[in-house]
Structures are given as C-alpha cells and as structure tokens.
C-alpha cells in the first residue's frame, strides 16, 4: 500500500514538471542546429549475398575507414573508384566486376571529361557500374 502511494506521488511529480513548460514544446526544435556528424555511411557494403561479397565488402570498409578517411575527395568520378569496385563485383561477379574495376582505375584521371555526364551537385563525372545502356557506349568487337 505504502509503495503504491509513494509511486503514485512520484509519478504525479513527474507529471507536474511537464505541465510547467508544455507551452514551449521544446522537443520540436531539437534538430535546429547541425549535429556535426561527418561520419559517412557505406550502404555499398551492406546486403551481401555470398562469401565473396562479404570479403570484398570487408576490404572496401577497411580502405574507406583507414585510408580514404585520411584523404580529401580526389577521385574524379561519382561513385568513387572504391565504391565502383564493390558495386561492380556485386552486380557483375568477381571476374567481370574485377576487370571493370581495373578498367575504371586506368580511367580515373579526369583527362576526358567530355565522355561522361556531369553530376552538377557534386561536380564529379558520373560512371555507375549498375547502369545498363540500351545502346552500348563502346561498340563490342565482332
């Protein structure tokens, strides 16, 4: 009985406190300032379907967290070369994706911007391994 009374009184106290400032509804304005979180989230490394993807996602995360994090944006493309690599391997498999990544690394120099679409927001060249084109950009050899 005594416990119930004390609990009731304590609960009513917490209710009183809320009543006094409810007119401000301060909770709505919590995100008015920037929280300064600059830690990027790497969605490319999520949803792995097999062991190869897990292994390469691990390599990708290691590179992103310990090498790329100490660097400024230097890649001329979006998605960047490391992101391209993991996406290519996920979408085209280890062999084709791996070759595509090597090809991409040789192209990462910004010497032929006229060949790519430009992302106006990021000011980077667009080159996504997931894109499939109805008309091939480079004609296949026959």
């Amino acid at each position: 009985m005594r416990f119930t009374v004390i609990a009731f009184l304590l609960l009513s106290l917490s209710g009183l406190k809320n009543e006094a400032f409810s007119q401000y509804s301060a909770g709505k304005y919590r995100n008015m300032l920037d929280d300064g979180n600059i830690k990027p989230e790497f969605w490319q490394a999520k949803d792995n379907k097999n062991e190869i993807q897990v292994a390469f996602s691990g390599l990708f995360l290691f590179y992103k967290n310990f090498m790329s994090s100490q660097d400024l944006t230097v890649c001329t493309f979006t998605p960047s070369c490391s992101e391209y690599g993991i996406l290519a391997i996920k979408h085209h498999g280890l062999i084709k994706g791996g070759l595509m990544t090597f090809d991409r690394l040789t192209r990462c120099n910004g010497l032929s911007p006229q060949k790519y679409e430009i992302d106006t927001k990021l000011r980077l060249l667009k080159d996504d391994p997931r894109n499939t084109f109805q008309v091939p950009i480079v004609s296949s050899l026959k």
Partner: protein
Amino acid sequence: MKPAIFLTLIISLAFTKANAQNLEQTFDFANSLFENKKYESAVEAYRRILFFDQENLYSPLIYKNIAESLYETGKPEEAAYYYELAYFSTENDTIKTELTLKRISCFLILKQPQYAQVELFNLPETLDSETRNLVTFYEALVYFAQGEYAQSETAFKSIATDTLVIESLFNKNAKIDRLNPKTAKVLSIIMPGLGQFYAGDVKNGINSLVLSGGLFFLGIRSAINNSLLDATISVLPWFQRYYTGGFKKAEVIAEAKIKERRYKVYNELLDQFE
C-alpha cells in the same frame, strides 16, 4: 427502337438532380475531420476546396485550419505558407499574433532562424505574460542559432526556473570557442595527427599519424636502400597525398567537433524547458 431508348435516357437525365458533393458539404466535412484531429484527411479535403473554390468564398476561411493540419502532419514549409495567407485574411489582432507565433515555430523547425527573426519583429509590443514567455523562448533559440550567445543567455534566464543551470551551460558553451580549426590545421602540418588529437578525435589522430608516419618511413628506407630518385617517384606522391589530406581533414574534424559540442549544449538547454 434504339433512338427511343437513348431519348428516354437523356430525358430522364434532366430530371435527376446532380448529386455530387458541393463545396459547402466539402467544407463541413473537412471541418469535422479537423475537429476530430484527422489531420491528414482534413488536408486532402481542404485542398479540394482550394482547388474548386474559384470565387474565393471558402478559401479565406480555411487557410488557418489547413495550415494547422499541415503543421500537425509534419509539413512545416507548406504550413508556413498557409499561415501567411491566413494572416492576411484576418483583421483580428489576437489571431494575427497567434498565427505569427505559429509561423515562427515553422521556421525554427525548418532550421531557418533568420526568417523566424523577421517574424519576431512583426509581433506587437503588448502581449500577455504567457505569450511574452513564448516569444522570449523563440528569441533565445534564434539568438543561439545565430551565435549571439550573450543575448540568448539573457533570454533563456528570463524564462527559466533555474538560472544557475542555464549559466553553467552557457559557460560550457563559451569553452567550445577555444577550439580553433586553424590551430588544428597548423598542428597537423607540424606533425600529422596532432590537430586531430587537439580536436579530440583520437581514432583519426592515430590513423593519420600511422599512415603518414608509415609512408615517411617507407620513403626514407627506399632512399637509403635504393636511391633518392626512386623514393621520390615511388613514395613521395603517396606521402604528399595523405600528409596534405591529413591537415586539411584536421580542420574539417575540428569544425565538426565544434558543431557537435554546440548541438549537445543546445539540447541540454532545451532539456530545461521540457
């Protein structure tokens, strides 16, 4: 036979009264939804009225309610627009003040304190004590967001129950300014990672130190074992990349740390009013 059927149908059409919902019914329906706090459905109904009300008969009556519904359903940007329309469609000063306060609230949620400040100037001089407190609270938030901490402190203190807590929080806030991004950059130029340690980011500090230090060691080793030219060609570009990246990143990290600490103090301040 066929023409006769068509004729009958067309004539019977003339006698049926069109039974579509008219504007008045929609207006009542929307208002009943609004009163029952079904804001999302109310917004839809109000939008229908705004669309079909070509003579502008109902629109001035619903601006406040549609703004209110949009505000409640988490669309402050649109709500601010309708609050303004409602403001200009009423003559009542009390309602005008109420609408301006709501508009300020919208701008604060939208992270636009400069617009909120413009609206604060719009308020009348004489207000009742409860409204005055609310206005002071908004002023405190606006000043804080714009970096005018002395004015913000005065405003917070005038409405807080415990001014000592507010004072200690503002002392904590003043200490944040001691962290200087430029100093962090210079420290990292002197030694990689030092600026990150100074900003309080140990993980990135160690990371930068190990990476740049490792490459530096590799360069020296290559210069001794092979030749200076070899070291310059093979290791220097890498070292340059992570060394410059390191000190530029130190500045960015320090700026982010300042924001993070400011955000924390700001939320502790808000805790005092909840």
